[in-house]
């Protein structure tokens, strides 16, 4: 919305200049202006961001303030403070939220403060009564409080807080207690419909990250050898959902979110698997069928990802134009299938024969990003391709070429490729400009 407003503002300024310079008549200026939508009222983003962050920081401050645990402050005073602060912030917050649209965001921020105080209260009561129970459960209860408010209000900020808390819950269970909480993913999934209902790309991005991080921590404990399979399946699924979303104008703005998080995670995973030692470590003792839960960990993301790609395959065959698409993306489901099938093989060949495949796949994506970035004059894409190529070159510096002469030649070749990319990018940009004129 901000971007459209900027364009409309620019157009209005230009029309005034042209009219005052006599290039066009006032009536013509009005006609041109009428072709474009009116400026939409901007949402108070500064208020939302600053008051939201402020609420979170105040909440953390309260937690730390009570963490000091004054001997001089009685139990009743401590409990009274936390209960009254929680009740007051919720009463004022909810009243403002329901009063009018003008105060809605301010009210939402105060309810965020209330949720932070709810969390502070859990820790404070544990402190007062010296409770040392299973502490990750506190993050879960805290998250449930935020989840319930996120849906009833509805509130994107509460949903983001809930997603972060559920992720911290999964992480602390895995790190501190070596336990896996698979059903934690359900609580994160419960927030997805809210992201769609509210059309919030920000919430969607947070949820996709929360799902990916939680999947790692859930899988790493119970299905250690299938962690990469689960993650890769999930990321390939994200990209396929991104493609599907491009077919529906209603959720078109969600496609880049799925693409960015899916592809960033996918590139990182493939990059890690391009290291022979890590690749061997991941694949050497892969037990894909030790029990039903491990099978579900890698099979569910695999089936969903493949289903997602089958769903878009019809459009790809029909050569339907997608805004975000390049042919190298077809490698994603193929890599996933190869990775899972290879893990199922009874005897495996390690080191370079299999690692080379991941290196070549990574190189193919890199080349495609660089080429597409140059062809379509997309600097971010061209830059991403160049950075990934440089990363791969440095990664292989130590483990592929022992001879300094070979290393030197490789660096020179990669350098020439990057220079050529820069040259082609500038030439294409110039040509497009000339054509436009």
């Amino acid at each position: 919305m901000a971007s459209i407003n900027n364009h409309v503002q620019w157009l209005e300024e230009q029309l005034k200049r042209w009219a005052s310079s006599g290039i066009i008549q006032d009536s013509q200026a009005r006609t041109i202006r009428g072709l474009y939508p009116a400026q939409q009222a901007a949402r108070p983003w500064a208020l939302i961001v600053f008051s939201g962050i402020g609420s979170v920081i105040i909440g953390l401050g309260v937690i730390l303030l009570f963490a000091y645990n004054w001997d001089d402050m009685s139990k009743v005073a401590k409990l009274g403070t936390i209960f009254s602060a929680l009740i007051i912030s919720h009463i004022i917050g909810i009243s403002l939220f329901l009063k009018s649209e003008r105060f809605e965001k301010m009210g939402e921020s105060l309810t965020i403060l209330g949720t932070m105080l709810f969390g502070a209260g859990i820790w404070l009561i544990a402190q007062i009564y010296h409770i040392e129970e299973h502490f990750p459960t506190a993050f879960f209860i805290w998250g449930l409080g935020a989840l319930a408010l996120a849906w009833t209000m509805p509130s994107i900020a509460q949903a983001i807080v809930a997603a972060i808390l559920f992720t911290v819950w999964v992480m602390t269970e895995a790190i501190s207690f070596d336990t896996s909480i698979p059903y934690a993913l359900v609580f994160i999934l419960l927030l997805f419909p809210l992201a769609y209902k509210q059309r919030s790309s920000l919430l969607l991005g947070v949820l996709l990250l929360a799902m990916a991080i939680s999947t790692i921590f859930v899988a790493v404990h119970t299905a250690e050898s299938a962690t990469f399979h689960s993650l890769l399946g999930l990321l390939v699924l994200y990209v396929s959902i991104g493609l599907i979303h491009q077919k529906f104008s209603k959720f078109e703005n969600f496609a880049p979110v799925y693409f960015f998080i899916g592809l960033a995670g996918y590139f990182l995973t493939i990059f890690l698997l391009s290291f022979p030692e890590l690749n061997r470590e991941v694949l050497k003792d892969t037990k894909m069928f030790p029990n039903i839960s491990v099978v579900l960990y890698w099979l569910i993301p695999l089936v969903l990802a493949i289903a997602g790609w089958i769903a878009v395959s019809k459009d790809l065959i029909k050569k339907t134009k997608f805004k975000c698409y390049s042919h190298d993306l077809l490698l994603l489901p193929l890599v996933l299938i190869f990775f899972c099938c290879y893990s199922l093989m009874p005897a495996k060949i390690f080191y370079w024969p299999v690692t080379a495949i991941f290196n070549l796949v990574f190189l193919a994506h890199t080349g495609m990003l660089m080429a597409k970035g140059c062809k379509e004059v997309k600097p971010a894409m061209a830059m991403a391709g160049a950075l990934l190529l440089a990363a791969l070159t440095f990664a292989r510096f130590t483990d592929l070429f022992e001879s300094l002469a070979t290393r030197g030649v490789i660096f020179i070749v990669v350098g020439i490729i990057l220079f050529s990319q820069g040259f082609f990018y500038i030439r294409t940009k110039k040509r497009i400009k000339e054509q436009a004129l």
Partner: protein
Amino acid sequence: MRKWLIIIVAALQVAVLAQMAGQRELVVRNGKTIYLRTAPVDPRDMFRGDYVRLNYEISSVPKSLLRDGLAENKCKQGMRVYAVLDVNEGGTSQLLYVTDKKPKEGLFIRGRVDDHDTTNPPIQIRYGIEAYFMQQGKGKQLEQGRRQEGIQIPLEMELKLGTNGIAVLRGHRYSPLGIGIETEHKSSEKGRQPATGIKVKMLNASDKPIAIVDLPQGRSFVLEPDSTRFRANKWEWVNQGIPQKRIENGDLRILQPGEIYETYIDLNDSYWFVKSGSQNPRTISGLEDWNDSFRLVYRPAPKEACGHLEKAELIWHGYLSSRTFTGASW
């Protein structure tokens, strides 16, 4: 409708906190006060400030004290268990046994199995009372504990215990008596030094005179194999379970506040020998396996067995355990 839903959800947040606090407050008001021996470990928590981590004597449970399903190797990490306690004459509570069945009556704390290896008893249990929160800066003082001339004065945590096994920490106190030991070694080949004897010290850390039982050659103490290591201790003291001799007035020693009592235990005296299965009794001197560790426990005769003594009212009837020691060092 939406308005009421939001209000209900916000009220639920308040209710969750009220339930947390209320459940504990009920235990504080109506629960029975007990004391548990502990050793403080280390402080600090990011969200909750300073706290002292507590390691209770009842946290590590040897296999011999497991009952019901636990005795049948049905022990799993995170499993709910109940530690049944008894209060001794010194006012501290001791573990009778741990079971997976909730006792219908009596003194018990609920906990969860924290760490369990089916091949290596003992099991570790968390009771949810392992953290003692204090004002920032004060945790370190408690962690350092009270120690004087190598004598450790045991820390005893005050708890309120509800009928459902929920325990709430209320405070702490120090035992009126402290104990310290120094093992004496004989220099030997290749730096290995078998222990020959143990110098035992007891300190009256209270502000009142205390009478202790002083039998010759340290025989007011008993030798207990330590069963809280990674592997079960196979040794048993030869005088295990044999009742102490009748105490006479001359066996009592009055310790004034701050006074230290010293005695010496000769490990080559056959009274202190240990045995394992059908093996001949032997001295613990030279036993070098880290798992074969022992402790000396001061446990005077019960109150009713001391009624005939002139200063019976001054006798402290609690128990004191020394730190563990092995039969050799390097």
